[in-house]
């Protein structure tokens, strides 16, 4: 079930550049388990979109199947959403994006959805450089089917039922890096300070942006032995770099002051500010990022933050040379060659 939230607005709620309040970005009341990491991701999306002053109805929310894929109901009520089929969100998002390049596409998937049944589609949407934000809520289990181990579970980790993961885990960030994604990050649903700026940066990125978000499943995978539990993540997380988005006209005050900062200029003159928690960390070297991720994993640590960013990349429509006018807005005159042309075509078959 989903429930309508009260529409009452406090008269003095803060508004963003569009005159919209935070509440204008909310979704329906969540029906996920209390404490589910996915809900924290939803609220991070709400905050990021509010702060970026994105028009909510100009967003399309795409998802597959799973608890995580239900989440788009719980943010941006004013946006259309599509809860498609298990593991196939990437293709549906591709079609939607080809039809209308003017919307912002937010994809929400799970580790089962992306790293197992939808692995092929995940790999290929990265290759296609679709202009979208692709998030995986990674809990190491299949929440919706009651806790089976997911392929992202660390080898040796156990789920609540005591089942042990026997095989090598799949790291979707490493895959995305290898396949040429131009924005790759990992975060933790419990760390809003890190997650919100990453989502904002990813939404501002023109191209394929991937964020793997460790998101504990309180019902099936939050026991101390799980490497996807709140406790484990809190204790073993290390951050490389996080990014923030600085619009052309505004200077932001950063919450994360430690480490070094570096500004990267985007297409439109706005800035991506990278805060490096590890001074030596480079966000421009995909191969090094893979090495760093694997090195931390060997030490039992989860490396989070922005791993890689290619600020000026081309996305599908640029490579395809698609008309700037969205294809779904073209009228019959632009689409139909008409009877005169047909006469010529007929003559070629005589």
């Amino acid at each position, binding site marked *: 079930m989903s429930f309508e939230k009260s529409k009452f607005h406090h008269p003095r709620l803060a508004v963003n550049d569009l005159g919209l309040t935070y509440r204008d970005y909310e979704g329906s009341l969540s029906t996920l388990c209390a404490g589910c990491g996915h809900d924290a991701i939803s609220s991070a999306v709400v905050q990021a979109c509010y702060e970026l002053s994105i028009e909510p109805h100009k967003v399309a929310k795409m998802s597959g199947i799973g608890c995580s894929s239900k989440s788009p109901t719980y943010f941006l009520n004013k946006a*259309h959403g*599509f809860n498609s089929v298990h593991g196939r969100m990437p293709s549906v998002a591709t079609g939607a994006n080809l039809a209308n390049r003017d919307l912002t596409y937010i994809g929400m998937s799970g580790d089962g959805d992306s790293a197992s049944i939808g692995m092929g589609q995940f790999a290929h949407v990265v290759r296609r450089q679709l202009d979208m934000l692709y998030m995986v809520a990674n809990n190491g289990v299949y929440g919706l089917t009651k806790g089976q181990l997911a392929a992202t579970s660390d080898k040796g980790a156990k789920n609540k039922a005591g089942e042990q993961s026997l095989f090598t885990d799949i790291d979707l960030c490493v895959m995305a890096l290898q396949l040429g994604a131009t924005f790759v990050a990992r975060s933790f649903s419990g760390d809003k300070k890190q997650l919100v700026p990453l989502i904002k940066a990813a939404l501002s990125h023109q191209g394929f942006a991937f964020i793997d978000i460790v998101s504990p499943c309180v019902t099936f995978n939050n026991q101390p032995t799980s490497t996807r539990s709140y406790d484990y993540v809190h204790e073993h997380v290390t951050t490389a770099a996080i990014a923030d988005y600085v619009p052309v006209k505004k200077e932001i005050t950063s919450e994360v002051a430690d480490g070094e900062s570096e500004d990267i200029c985007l297409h439109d003159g706005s800035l991506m500010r990278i805060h490096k928690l590890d001074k030596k960390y480079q966000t421009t070297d995909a191969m090094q990022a893979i090495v760093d991720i694997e090195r931390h994993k060997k030490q039992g640590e989860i490396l989070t933050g922005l791993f890689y960013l290619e600020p000026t990349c081309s996305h599908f429509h640029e490579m*395809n040379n*698609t*008309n700037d006018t969205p*294809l779904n807005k073209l009228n019959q005159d632009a689409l139909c060659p008409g009877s005169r042309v047909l006469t010529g075509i007929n003559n070629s078959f005589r």
Partner: protein
Amino acid sequence: MTNSINYNSSCTAINDFVVRFANTNGTGSASANNMFAKSILRMGIPVSAKNIFPSNIQGMPTWYEVRINENNFLARRGGQSELVVAMNAQSIKEDITSVKSGGFLLYDSSKQLIQEYIRNDIEYLGIPISAICQKEYTDPRQRQLFKNVIYVGALAAFLNIEFEVLKSLVADQFKGKEKLITPNIYALELGYQYANHHFSCPLSIKVERRDLIKNRIMVDGNTATGLGAVYGGATVVGWYPITPSTSVIEKFASYCDRLRIDPASGKKNYALVQAEDELAAIGIAIGAGWNGARAFTATSGPGISLMSEFLGLAYFAEIPMVLVNVQRAGPSTGMPTRTQQSDVLACAYASHGDTKQILLFPESPCECFEFAALAFDLADQLQTPVIIMSDLDLGMNDHLTDEFMWDDKKEYNLGKVLSAKQLDDIERYGRYLDSDNDGICYRTLPGTHPDKGSFFTRGTSRDEYAVYTEKSEDYVKNMKRLEKKFATASNIVPKPEINQTKPLAKTGLIFFGTSSHAINEAQSQLQEQGLTVDTLRVKAFPFHQSIEQFIEKHNNVFIIEQNRDAQMKSLLSNELSIDPNKLLSIANCDGLPLTSHYIVDGILSQLSEQLSSKQAG
């Protein structure tokens, strides 16, 4: 001078015979054979051409069968041919047997025929084609390619084809590559002269100019489907290669390249993605359809299986999209290069749960064009997938067909889509509210209105306002509405084509798609046997009520189709309130286009069985 043996019983025919070409895959024979078929067309005589080819790129035997018939009997005739052009040493034994008694074998006499294969009831037209090429050309590629052109030249002499017609075809074929015209005409001359000098030409089978083509054109169904999709306004395509559907996409792409470039910017007014598999291909079409673009994909049997889950989602979530199914025989390691109509049930009921899909059954390239364009209107009107059920014979072979027509005054029917203004006028929008009582609800597109009309698209777990629910009443109500929508569809999709005598005949024939090609000939053969039949061609599913009436009004109704299990017969029995015992089946599943003989033999033997069992009883 002549070195052919003359028989009193030579086949004699004007504008009514079959020429069969036996070639090797990948030797460039296709374009020469096509030129031959087109020369008959340009002589004003009805002609059909069928490729019979293996699932292989190079080295295997292929056949090309050209039927010339001024009565417009253009289905595969079956049986032996009056003239066989035997260019493949590998299949020569079989090719010699495929000549009709009194017929002719054109072969490359550079090497002697194996004595034991020789029949003495046919005539041998030996031309030393390889030797001529050896002498004339030095480049090995030319030696191979011009072999084909030489036999076409010889055929012109044998069959009385006007040489000027061939010359005009060469000129058309090499427009833009003029350098190639002279050598091709020269090769044609080599064959033409050789035949004229060594044999008495023309033979007793020959063509005579007629004016029977009128406005018809000769083209394959896949080209027509691809072009129809351009005219129908398709902009987004996801696809994965599979024979025999691939050329639908290739043609769509090449027409778009010419006709869909924005003149101001030079940018594309379409987007085509070769997806990672068929699941993604249809997912792309569904995503685009959801977002208000006209989108399609094309596939064949195995691809249909993979698309099945998504077809279910699109049915329940009510997403418009078009799927072209160019049907073929069997699985991937079946006979993927042979034709069939064997996905009828798999498509009509595609997917899990209670699903029914809209099917269109084009019979000709002209109808492929018309139905492809129409399918986008239907999908938008009905907010559901529309499947075009073509087949390999229709899709990949050239057919004589009515020219393509387009009415410039006709506007796309985009169905019930609400604008921002319309949304403003509505108190509360409900995506699945049946306000018009036809089962079709109003949809909204993402990005339309800042506060109204957004909803979360799901399968069935929602109420009329698209709010999540798993209540049984809501589920049932929705399913009943979808049923109503399907009933509405039966009056919107193309109606059947019915031909009835007055008074009505006792026996009726029902058929669809390419099975209709053999009907005119079968009817005339049945007439010769004293049997008059009425006919009904099904053009779409859901079935129009007139089909039920047709069955009611006839004593026996034969359902003619190209599969083993009589799938259309099952579908009719399942969907209509009729006496299933009235339905008799003519089903052919050998992978080759249906012949009139198969139909006639089947009808006559079943009727006489019926008669004798009645008498016995």
